[in-house]
């Protein structure tokens, strides 16, 4: 790198300036809409009406709007619901996804190709469009307005994690299985004792991708969980459309409350999030 720095020409200085200015502008555009929301969330009603939206709030410890937002939308309860859904859906989808991928990757049996194509074709079906008839099935099964019904729907439509696991199994040498079987291990033992622990990177990837999509899921939650005490966090946020019309200081505090958990998650697991995105995309 040092040789390059020594050879710095006028051209490369101009390029550097251009590079930083463009990155700074893009970053500002990315964060300004959110930052303005943060400012507004801390403003009192009078302040909100009197000051420019771009001005700082007079008091960054004015949590009154947050309290109103949490109470109005019953957000604590909704966080609890979202938490339950997250834990169960993630556990189920990691287990079923990895088990299915194990069987599809390690055993060739009549129909395995067909099952593979069934999952592939399923990934083409547009999600929101399918909900029209899924709604009817949910209704007949009596799953509407039960947290478990919503959990089952979310666990059932999971194709991405299956592909992440399939891809990962392809790179786990079959000799691992064979030597374990020689040692007297059953197939169940091979999966749970030998292979599953090795899946850790794929599990993390699928947890990240699935976790983000479950936390942000709105459409199915809105359809299947209509009772106020069952709402998840994104549907709770949507309830702000009605009563608060233009009271953006309340709406913004609701928005900020839903963003905070995912922001913390992102800051802690940044590396895993980026690599999860990358390996999720290779799926093609």
């Amino acid at each position, binding site marked *: 790198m040092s040789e390059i720095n020594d050879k710095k020409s006028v051209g490369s200085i101009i390029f550097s300036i251009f590079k930083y200015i463009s990155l700074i502008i893009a970053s500002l555009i990315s964060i300004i*809409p959110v930052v303005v929301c943060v400012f507004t969330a801390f403003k009192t009603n009078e302040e909100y009406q009197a000051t420019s939206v771009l001005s700082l709030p007079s008091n960054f410890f004015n949590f009154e709007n947050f309290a109103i937002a949490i109470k109005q939308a019953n957000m604590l309860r909704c966080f609890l619901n979202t938490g339950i859904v997250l834990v169960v859906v993630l556990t189920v989808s990691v287990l079923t996804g990895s088990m299915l991928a194990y069987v599809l990757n390690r055993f060739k049996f009549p129909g395995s190709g067909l099952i593979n194509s069934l999952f592939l074709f399923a990934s083409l079906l547009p999600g929101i469009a399918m909900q029209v008839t899924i709604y009817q099935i949910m209704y007949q099964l009596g799953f509407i307005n039960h947290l478990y019904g919503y959990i089952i729907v979310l666990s059932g439509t999971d194709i991405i994690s299956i592909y992440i696991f399939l891809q990962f199994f392809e790179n786990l040498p079959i000799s691992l299985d064979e030597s374990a079987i020689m040692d007297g291990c059953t197939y169940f033992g091979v999966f749970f004792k030998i292979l599953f622990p090795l899946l850790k990177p794929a599990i993390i990837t699928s947890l990240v991708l699935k976790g983000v999509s479950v936390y942000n899921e709105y459409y199915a939650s809105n359809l299947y969980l209509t009772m106020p005490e069952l709402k998840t966090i994104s549907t709770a946020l949507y309830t702000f459309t009605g009563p608060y019309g233009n009271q953006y200081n309340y709406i913004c505090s609701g928005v900020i409350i839903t963003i905070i958990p995912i922001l913390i998650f992102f800051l802690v697991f940044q590396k895993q999030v980026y690599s999860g995105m*990358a390996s999720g995309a290779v799926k093609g």
Partner: protein
Amino acid sequence: MGGSVTNAGQKTFAQKLQTRKAQRYIIIVTFMFIPLLLLLVFTYIPFIKMVQFSFYDMKYIGTKTFVGIQNYIDVFKRPDMFGSLFVSVYYMGGAILQLALALFFATMMVFKVKGESIFKAAMFFPYLICGIAVGFIFKFFYARGYVLDTLLQLFGMAPENIPLWLQDQKINNFSLAATSVWRYTGQNMVLFLGAMMSVDTDLYEAASLDGANKWHQFRYIIMPSIKSIIVLNLVLSISGSLSAFEPPYVITNGQMGTGTYFVIMNRIAHENQRVGLACAMAVVLLVIIIICTVAQNVFFKYALNDGSEDESKAAVKAKKQAQKAAKKGGA
């Protein structure tokens, strides 16, 4: 199964094989039961019903009347329906812009940048915000006299020249598509950057020592390594634009000509409860998506087959292997 463990010592090879076979059946059946049941109940039964219902005039509850292809005729004839597919064109335009921006910023970041992680995080984070929150953020952003208007006045624009971002039918779809660009550019950039980083960074240094300028580095080192991931993302974004839902749903509720196909379908299915018509809409969209996917495969087969494809494939493969190796090392 317990027997197979205790008797393992005395068994002949053929007997062992027998129990293996039984074990195979058991594991195949048990491991696939739940995923296949869910796939059947929540994907294929709804899919078959979707096709079936599309020929009926029906609500969720009550009687069905067979109407033949009348629903399909309605989908193509009603201006609010087939026309709403053209609203997707704005989102497709947005998708192309977003890919171009993502490519540009990823390229900027490949050449050493101080504070790279901060820029990357700032641009990526919008992707993680839920669609409803993004909707509210931009409802506020575009509202008359609020964020965008104030910013523009700060830069000296006269208030009377500022359009109504969400009401003016000439521009409101641009405003909405821009929110998608805002949300997804950073994520695309992270994907591209990942692919670019798979190229050995020594290559850039060697090239610049050999006198290659930035454009040459981009054209001959970066581009070949990420060609397939660009095409893949282009196809994904285009089918994504056909299914655009949240921006118009939250921000304008599909009013004033901003209703995308899914917004209209949602209204027809769940507010008007015209299930048959909504199913016909779903089938039409599915056909369009299948056509797009087939076109993508043809495109991958022929258009990209110019020799350099192997290079990019090799790069992707090498990257995958490197990742796997790194992961294994970490595990």
